[in-house]
């Protein structure tokens, strides 16, 4: 689902950095205040697990990639704020250490997957509870919502950045291509993420919460 460098216009990644920057600052302050020596290792493990899962990518014709993300898993285990930070950290490592994802796409990925995906997953858990069906639905929605947002952002590029002759300067396809090309495969990937969330909860969840 990562967007490589060169596909997102500055008119989009500039404001996205502004919004994400504020949220990262607030999140790091919360992290310093609230996390204890027991919770920090779990966050590190979940971050590393999400990183490892995202390394296995398959490119899609719409210009992006498909893979399980672990968004629902991390959101179920640590809540939306910490999931946002953990996934942002994953994107930072991928962009700066492995050249995967790109720094111009980092805030978009962080906001779509880390924030919106986590909030959607936590919302589903709030409604359905942390039973198997709730965890599965959280994993599924934590994949599908970010996919839809990424597709919307990609499809926005030809509208916000075009040359004088009307040709696109960045990602060239509109929503009629990006929405089906990105969202449809993720409806299936979401099933894998749902199963992953259920299994991860059974292995990693705090005993008092499981």
């Amino acid at each position, binding site marked *: 689902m990562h967007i490589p460098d060169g596909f997102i216009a500055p008119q989009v990644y500039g404001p996205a950095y502004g919004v994400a920057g504020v949220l990262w600052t607030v999140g790091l302050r919360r992290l310093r205040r609230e996390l204890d*020596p027991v919770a920090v290792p779990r966050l590190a493990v979940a971050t590393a697990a999400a990183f490892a899962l995202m390394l296995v990518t398959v490119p899609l014709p719409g210009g992006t990639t498909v893979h399980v993300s672990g968004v629902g898993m991390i959101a179920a285990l640590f809540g939306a704020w910490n999931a946002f930070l953990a996934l942002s950290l994953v994107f930072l490592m991928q962009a700066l*250490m492995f*050249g995967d994802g790109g720094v111009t796409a980092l805030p978009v990925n962080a906001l779509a997957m880390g924030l919106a995906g986590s909030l959607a997953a936590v919302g589903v858990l709030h409604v359905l509870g942390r039973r198997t069906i709730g965890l599965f639905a959280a994993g599924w929605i934590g994949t599908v919502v970010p996919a839809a947002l990424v597709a919307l952002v990609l499809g926005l590029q030809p509208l916000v950045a075009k040359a004088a002759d009307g*040709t696109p300067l*960045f990602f060239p396809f509109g929503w009629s291509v990006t929405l089906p090309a990105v969202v449809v495969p993720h409806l299936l990937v979401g099933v894998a993420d749902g199963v992953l969330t259920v299994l991860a909860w059974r292995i990693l969840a705090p005993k008092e919460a499981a």
Partner: protein
Amino acid sequence: MKDRLLLVSYLAAVVAGSVVHDARLLAAGAALVIASAGAGAPRVLRRVVRAALPFALAVSLGYVVAARADLDAAGTVLLRLNARVLLLVGLAFRILPAVDLHRALGFAPTLRFVLVLATSQVLTFRRLFTDFRQALDARSPRRVGLVAALRHGAATAAWFARRAEHDATAMTEALDARGFFLDRD
């Protein structure tokens, strides 16, 4: 300081690369960045192509099919797009290997701490995953079946989770013993 300067330079170059829209300038920039690696240029180029090709190819082919009635205009768009991707990915592979990310992020101790923990776990995951896979291959006289591979994957994942959590706990307790968590606001 050197690492932070390099990182800031890289970010500035990326912004510059995304506000220039002349395909010739972008292509020249990409060529310059890759050539600046000297004897290492072919290796940088290989890494850039390997990282960018799947995306660039998928988008380019899709665009050619969609704009088959006007291939001239499509050529201009694709030249600009691919030159930009080549430049930006080239910058990443040319500059970032020289940056010590942990030093560059020294201005944010909490971020650096979590980054160190996560990096250590990532390296553990990668090395041990290879060990486990090779062990399964060595124990299997014939090609491993799907069920056996799934069972092996599940057992490996559970082992990874426990091992990584144990290691991260040990590192955190070591930092705790040295007072890292005492200076929280």
